[in-house]
């Protein structure tokens, strides 16, 4: 692999810098180096505490950024667009009749292979909300109440049709394992603003309907990027970060003693062997020790005002999606670049009506609260929120009460930093099968997100197996200009 060139150079630079600056510069760290190399940074001196801080490779930004960070709400399992954001009265009219073959011919089918394909009308009611008149399922009243901050994209498509590859595609732009997830790309490209937290954080919550599809850690893997860019899963149970807690019987002070002694000895060793890895090691031990304090403080939402807890509708530490939304807000406040929330249980092969009803109860208020809370802190303007499943569901019935996986057309929504609110973009055909107006693929979505962050998606690449690998792939992608504020 030659994909670590950036990091290797980063290391080389550290090494070479030390040769020039002599040993006095030791401990000043990479940020100082970056500022040495980049006059723009030099002009605005940073505190030297930023030890091994990665400055990002996109410097300066390719465009002025309209958003600084992203909260990505991954609705895992494949939410039905037909019971959420895409109203299809014609489908209701055709309920029970055979699906016209003209819609389905040559398309991928998952579990309905070989089955009789019958139209299955929307199972829930729709209603218009807000000044923009967004027509969405009436169960999502809270989201409806902030719909003027939201842009609904009703013409999404994806290449995959099974959960695992579809998540991979949505996260990495590729169905082959080993590619970096978008959060890794962003922290690689932009660095991280948080002091003692990782730049890419993942939160997961379970639904109550029991259709909790598995999610692999590869979904937040750094792939071929260095592992410092991998997503860190903040867990609801046990240590929020793996191995965060000191051993039983070891006090914070004693743990600090051990870390200090390790670092003191490492410094002495460095004086003998002159190895830049040792300075990094020392910085990482300091970072780890600080994380041991900062992460528990971060995840403890118990000191949030009652009003806020009521807004989200959660109890601190209940592991719910709402709790994770509140946690996401606390993370963006601390400067974390990319936060991905997985909420599972959207895989409604059967009982889509009850299933979506249950899901609406789990997420509706929380999504509204996240938008409202960020807005009242004046952070919505530079925080992008994306709500998306890995695919949608068929307009055809599965087993009389459910819908199968579907990738030819589905809906997502975006809100916040740089997004025009109160609008919709694209449309599926009259039965909700294929995206026909402004079809949007996953690469387009990624390109749009990168654009908002100030990155030209064709210019954020890393050499991998000879290719200039990009989040948006090699086949081209378009930025959804008309949804940008």
């Amino acid at each position: 692999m030659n994909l670590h060139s950036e990091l290797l150079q980063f290391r080389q630079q550290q090494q070479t810098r030390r040769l020039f600056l002599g040993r006095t510069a030791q401990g000043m760290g990479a940020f100082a180096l970056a500022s040495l190399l980049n006059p723009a940074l030099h002009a605005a001196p940073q505190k030297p505490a930023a030890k091994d801080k990665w400055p990002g490779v996109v410097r300066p930004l390719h465009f002025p950024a309209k958003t600084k960070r992203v909260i990505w709400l991954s609705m895992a399992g494949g939410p039905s667009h037909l019971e959420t954001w895409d109203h299809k009265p014609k489908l209701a009219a055709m309920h029970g009749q055979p699906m016209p073959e003209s819609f389905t011919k040559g398309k991928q089918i998952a579990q309905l292979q070989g089955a009789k394909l019958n139209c299955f009308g929307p199972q829930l009611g729709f209603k218009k909300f807000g000044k923009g008149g967004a027509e969405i399922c009436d169960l999502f009243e809270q989201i409806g109440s902030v719909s003027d901050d939201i842009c609904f994209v009703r013409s999404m498509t994806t290449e995959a049709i099974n959960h695992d590859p579809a998540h991979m595609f949505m996260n990495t732009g590729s169905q082959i394992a080993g590619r970096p997830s978008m959060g890794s790309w962003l922290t690689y490209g932009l660095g991280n603003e948080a002091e003692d937290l990782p730049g890419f954080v993942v939160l997961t919550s379970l639904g109550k309907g029991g259709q909790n599809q598995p999610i692999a850690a590869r979904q937040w893997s750094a792939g071929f990027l260095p592992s410092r860019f991998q997503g860190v899963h903040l867990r609801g149970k046990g240590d929020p970060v793996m191995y965060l807690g000191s051993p039983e019987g070891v006090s914070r002070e004693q743990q600090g003693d051990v870390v200090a002694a390790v670092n003191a000895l490492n410094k002495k060793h460095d004086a003998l062997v002159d190895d830049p890895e040792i300075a990094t090691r020392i910085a990482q031990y300091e970072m780890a020790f600080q994380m041991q304090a900062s992460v528990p403080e971060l995840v403890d939402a118990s000191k949030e005002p009652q009003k806020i807890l009521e807004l989200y509708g959660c109890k601190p530490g209940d592991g719910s999606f709402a709790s994770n939304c509140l946690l996401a807000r606390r993370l963006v406040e601390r400067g974390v670049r990319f936060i991905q929330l997985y909420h599972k249980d959207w895989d409604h092969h059967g009982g889509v009506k009850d299933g979506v009803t249950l899901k609406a109860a789990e997420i509706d208020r929380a999504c509204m609260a996240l938008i409202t809370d960020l807005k009242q802190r004046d952070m919505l303007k530079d925080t992008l929120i994306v709500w998306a499943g890995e695919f949608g569901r068929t307009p055809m019935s599965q087993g009389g009460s459910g819908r199968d996986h579907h990738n030819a057309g589905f809906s997502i929504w975006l809100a916040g930093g740089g997004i025009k609110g109160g609008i919709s973009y694209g449309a599926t055909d009259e039965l909700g099968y294929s995206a026909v107006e402004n079809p949007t693929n996953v690469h387009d979505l990624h390109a749009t997100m990168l654009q908002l962050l100030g990155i030209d998606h064709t210019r954020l690449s890393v050499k991998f197996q000879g290719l200039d690998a990009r989040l948006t792939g090699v086949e081209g992608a378009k930025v959804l200009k008309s949804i940008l504020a």
Partner: protein
Amino acid sequence: MKLFAFFFLTIVGALPILAAPALAPASAKVDFNRDIRPILSENCFACHGPDAKQVKGGLRLDQRDSVLKPAKSGKTAIVPKQPAKSELVRRIFTTDTDDLMPPPESHKKLTAAQRDLFKRWIAEGAEYQTHWAYLPPVKTAVPAGQNGVDLLVRARLKEIGLKSSPEADRRTLVRRIYFDLLGLPPKPEEVEAFASDTSPAAFAKLVERLLASPHYGERMAIGWLDVVRFADTIGYHSDTPRNVHPYRDYVIRAFNENKRFDQFTREQLAGDLLPNATLETRVGSAFNRLLLTTEEGGAQAKDYEARYLTDRVRAVGAVWLAQTIGCAQCHDHKFDPTTARDFYSMGAFFADIKEPIVGRREDGIIVPSEKDNVELARLDGETARLQKTFDAPQPQIAGAFAKWQESALAALQNEANWKPLAPATVASTGGAKLAIQPDRSVLASGKSSDKDTYTLAFTNVTSGVTGLRLEALPDPSLPASGPGRAPNGNFVLTEIVATVKRAEQKAEPVKFAGARATFEQTTPADGNPSKKWSAASAIDGDVKGAAFGWAVLPEVGKAQQLILELAAPLTLAAGDTLTIELKQNHGNKSHTLGRFRLAATADAAAARTITPAAPPADLAGILKIAPEKRTDAQQEKLSAHHKNLGPELAALRQQLAAAKKARTDFETKLPRCIVSESLPAPRTVRILARGNWMDDSGAVIQPALPGHLAVGVKIADRRLNRLDLAEWILARENPLTARVFVNRLWKQFFGTGLSKVLDDLGAQGEPPPNAALLDWLACEFRDSGWDVKHLVRIIVTSQTYRQTSTASRELLVRDPDNREHARQSRWRLDAELVRDNALTISGLLVATIGGPSVKPYQPDGYWENLNFPVRSYPASTGEDQHRRGLYTWWQRSFVHPSMLAFDAPTREECAADRARSNIPQQALVLLNDPTYVESARAFASRIVKEGGADANARLAWAWKQALGRAPRADELVPVRALFDKHLAQYKADTKAAEAFLKVGIAPLPPATDPAELAAWTSVARILLNLHETITRS
């Protein structure tokens, strides 16, 4: 990239000594492969390269013919020796952005130096060369007695004006060679022994000893397991387990036994196809099964068939060829001459692999160890001995035999009184499928309910029926051969009810006068009031309860009969129907009939008589022949049948059955491995346009070798198979295989490959700075008979390997990445070795080799996002908790978090290389993972027990254990201070000390002061966390 360029512009520019970043000999002629092709590939080939469909302006820069001809524009890209007339030169120097190449929108930019290189190269004649890796390796002559590595490294150093570094000190050297060859640290006494052995042959002797160690194979296996993507689980979606660990042990064994690399290769690709295939070679062929597979419902077979094909092609590309063939899945390769046809032709080699496309992998073949084979032989011997005894003539039962023949004949005659009834209809309330067999019996299959009622209707019944008979019959399709569907072959008939429906009348019950059975179960029958599962309870008029009914355990697996005597003779007229209901309400584990038959008799005696079941038809024929007229074979057949019946041989029969069961039980516990097996008809492989598996329009493809690489290779005139592929990979004409292996191996000993892009020796890879060295090693490897240990020996005994890893300032500047080997390198240990090192220092390591993967402690809930099924993680207990890292259970979607933190790959894709990151998670693991806390306290126990009397002696002892050296005085100060402080704190808070010492399952030494041990554990933690401890230098 940009940062770096800027760096050199601003700083290096000011310091002329550093102005030569590339270490090229001055004044050399421009070399196409070294200097020009990498620039072309990086900047130009995407539009002017091998992908024939993408060529812009009719110009291909990868072919000299093309550049010398006028392109579509009418201009000629290159006029040799005349840069001024070459359009290429104009276009790369122009300031007109419309004309500039590469175009600005490509975001590619040539440096001034690169532009000048083009000019010089054209001035010198613009000679092209075949890509370096596709040319046969050239073997430089190395004088006898000299080490080729040293010779070629020094030649290169001389060329570029660098000098070798001195040899590392002995303590460093012995640690280095232990980590590199065994992956374990040397024991302090081993360090001392080597440090004090001043003989010139000491190092060579040490190397030989390590090469002979069984841990050598473990160390060598790690890199191989990465590149072949060995893991314990399938990867996609549910990521469920599969049986594959014997392959890992095969790899370890292969390296230990120094299996020739060509044979190793053949066995993995085609171990099942070898003419002399053995268990060993078949286990090797598990390589073809290591890919990602799925069990996801709704996955389409064609989709995954295409995924598996591409996965396997990528694997061959990664493991043996270091070619990114995978890039040609959707289009011809952009940089290398690999076509999409090559890609699918390679895939077609694997179209014969038998496997479920979507679904659970099979259990695989049984892989007994040598010890297992001894036990199997013993069990087989025992069975054979008993069988022989059983088969031998048994004169003591001659009387019984004669008697049986009489009764069998009687049974035959009796049988003539019974007429099997053909049911007109059959039905099951429990949803079982009931099928009427040619012999009029009924066989149940499909859904197996705990309760069921079978209803049979008969219209054609003999007149004057005096009795009915229900035969419960064995069948191979049933559990334990039946006759019931319960797992043990039993059934419970709770009630049998017969009714007659005569035309125009109400159905009338048929009354029974008695019920008799060939056998009635008595054990267990505790819950049954009559203490047996009697025939009578099946006609007692009601169902009563679960504990009533006729059952036959343990006399299952054979025919049993229930004979029902009617209270009055029964005659059916035309149109009348006899209905028989078999109620089976036991309600537990499918105690229902599996195969049965009804018969009727008009003979009054037959309806009251239980006779043994009539012998099967083939024996009936023999029985009817007078004994003296039977042939020996006929007589023997009868005798064999009889031996299985009477009580006379019951004990022997039981012994024999027990022996057979013991063997089966032992066998089910043996390891299994999914391996390669050829389908008689391989799957059809087509070229998929743009990789789209739904597109059936592409040409059907047969296995074939990549056209541009297989030039001059003799190809068989038949469908090629995996063995042919292996032979081509190993052929002398193949310029890649030996280079690829040598290049990866070099990384194990120097930290970076000779060509640093280990998985790509194509155009986008790196021409090796020391090509002569890579070539020489490749030739030497091949010429030695693919002798891996020979190759390792050459490398590690070289002076180059033995240099110090501490670089001079000049070296750091001139060759920061140590690509020229004027010194050794240092790096953090691989994930598995970080663990092995701590376990060795602590004394916890269990050095057993091979076996099922093990589960080191892991944070609770780490697998919570797995599903289908929901998974728990039972950490291994006993010795398995302290095994080497390479035996860790490899759950692809959630690789053990400690391993992941130290850059272990997930092995979802082939990983020829590992990153070496330095991240805070590593600190958290070494500080807080129970494995390392437990190691620290076990190490502390050793320090207290073995380290001497006072604290300073113990510290010195501990240093030697962890680092192989004595502490320096200034190092002791902070550690001693911490020890004293923690000792006081733990003395004041013994509860904390005790809690600290409870981490992990390792036992505590008896009678130790907890505070003292806890304070030493703090010290041990420091040592286990040191950068030096986890670094090979």
